């Protein structure tokens, strides 16, 4: 079985994000690029399924990112993926969700898979729409928010989170799955894994390999970002020392009343 995991490279989510008022862009200075944390859960799911399946099951990591970020993918290889494919092309810059889904799905058709696992969200853009777009273009079933997964008789059985509870569903392969954070904490890369990752292959792909019939990048996109600005500054509020419970409660109650919240 061939499992492919898509990973996005994003600015470190633990760093405080700041927009430069002059350039209106994200301040990247001093902010490291890392694997999208949600995608680490997807990779963990893939590695667990590989361990259970054994035999000739492989895990390939796929990413669309500038070539300069290639080495960031080593972390995924160090965690246990067998190899990686990096789709890089200046022509992809500025691609929106539609254009990215379109380009990535064509690349994944070339890579081939029995099971494609995608993180539920990206930490930067956070549309959560890409998995659906990929499934449509790949004409594969989509099962999302898995917290448990197993392969039984050549089919994928998952327990998935829903808006109001959970469901058990079964999907035929090949299919596209996304993982919930309850799937399990991603593993750390072992020292052996880190050493081994240096020898693993990261294959390169570019737009000309994909045979696209529609433009991608900003020119092929269906949305355009008009502005990107810091939120209105929330002034530092009042601070009140409460002598006892009753006075603290009164202070809050009066404040809520003034704002017509009670």
């Amino acid at each position, binding site marked *: 079985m061939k499992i492919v995991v898509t990973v996005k490279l994003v600015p470190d989510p633990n760093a405080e994000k700041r927009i430069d008022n002059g350039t209106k862009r994200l301040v990247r200075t001093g902010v490291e690029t890392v694997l999208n944390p949600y995608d680490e859960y997807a990779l963990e799911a893939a590695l667990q399924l590989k361990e259970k399946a054994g035999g000739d099951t492989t895990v390939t990591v796929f990413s669309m990112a500038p070539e300069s970020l290639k080495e960031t993918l080593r972390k995924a290889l160090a965690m246990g993926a067998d190899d990686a494919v990096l789709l890089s092309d200046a022509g992809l810059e500025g691609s929106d*969700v539609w254009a990215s889904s379109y380009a990535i799905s064509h690349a994944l058709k070339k890579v081939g898979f029995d099971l494609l696992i995608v993180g539920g969200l990206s930490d930067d853009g956070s549309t959560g729409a890409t998995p659906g*777009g990929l499934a449509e*273009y790949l004409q594969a079933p989509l099962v999302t928010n898995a917290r448990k997964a197993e392969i039984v008789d050549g089919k994928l059985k998952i327990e998935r989170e829903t808006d109001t509870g959970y469901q058990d569903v079964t999907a035929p392969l090949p299919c596209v799955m996304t993982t919930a954070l309850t799937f399990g904490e991603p593993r750390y890369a072992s020292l052996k894994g880190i050493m081994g990752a240096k020898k693993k292959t990261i294959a390169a792909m570019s737009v000309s390999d994909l045979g696209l019939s529609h433009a991608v990048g900003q020119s092929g996109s269906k949305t355009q970002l008009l502005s990107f600005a810091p939120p209105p500054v929330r002034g530092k509020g*009042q601070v009140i020392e409460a002598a006892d419970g009753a006075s603290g*409660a009164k202070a809050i109650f009066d404040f809520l009343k003034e704002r017509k919240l*009670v």
Partner: protein
Amino acid sequence: MKNVLVYVQHKGGQTPKVTFEMATQARKLADQLGGKAHALVVGAGSSQLAESLKAYPLDAIYVNDDADVDKYLLDPVIDYLEAAAKAIGPSLVLVANTLTGKDVAGRLVARLNAGICADAVDFKLEGGKVVAVMPKMGGAAITNCELLDGDYGVVTIRPNAFAAQPGGAGAAVQAIEKPAGKSYGVLVEKDVEEGSGELALEEAPVVVAGGRGLGGPEPFDTLLKPLASALGGAVGASRAAADAGWVPYSLQIGQTGKTVSPSLYIAVGISGAIQHKVGMRSSGTIVAINKDGQSPIAEFSDLVVVGDAFAIVPELTKLVQAAKS
């Protein structure tokens, strides 16, 4: 894009509040674009739900009580939406920004060759252009994004961001035919509801959240729940409280949990680390009750009361209850 189509997510006729918010917003958008406002309701319980949707200012509601919608995961819904969108013609499709809504929206992007704007909290329409306003990166940026010319566009709507206002002459409820010749692969074998009857965290107009400062699981029930009930809201938690096992992860607010933007957020014993902040900083009013007036949460709260939460919260609950009766 002239018309507006609302996808109504529901289970057995039960729908989240955001549906009515979208129905109200759909009318405004349709009027500005010069088209009509429609909704699609499919699956068991749809006819009954369509009756309550009629109170909102829509032109037409397409309905089918098709049992396959609940039997198979999502595939039938996408087919119905595609059919409805094609029947209506060029349109803007509104979908709730929920777990299900994200899946629906993503697939429509490819099915309708459409652009998408996700998690919208406002719209700006100028000269027929549709621009969505969306907080991104956990509220660190506010973006304006335009749906470029095309027949279709998809926007997912953040719950609680738009008002729900009944009105209008009553929509025409119309049956929509089941798209022909389809077979579906993903079978739903078991469908379990959890915590039903409780207000969903993302939808609550008031959230009372607790953190490490509460010291254990009991205060969530004995201290926070009565205050949340009195305010007509829901209880949430910081990651520290969820990691400690005091509350289920479904209550966790923050980067790896839920994003909420209620009109009132009361943080009790929460220090306000960045991981929590990104999940709640777009709330209307933020009140913090904390032992330490220097904790990070003081930097983005409208009111910080420094004191003992165990003494303050019960008194506050009493005041709110008294004001209500």
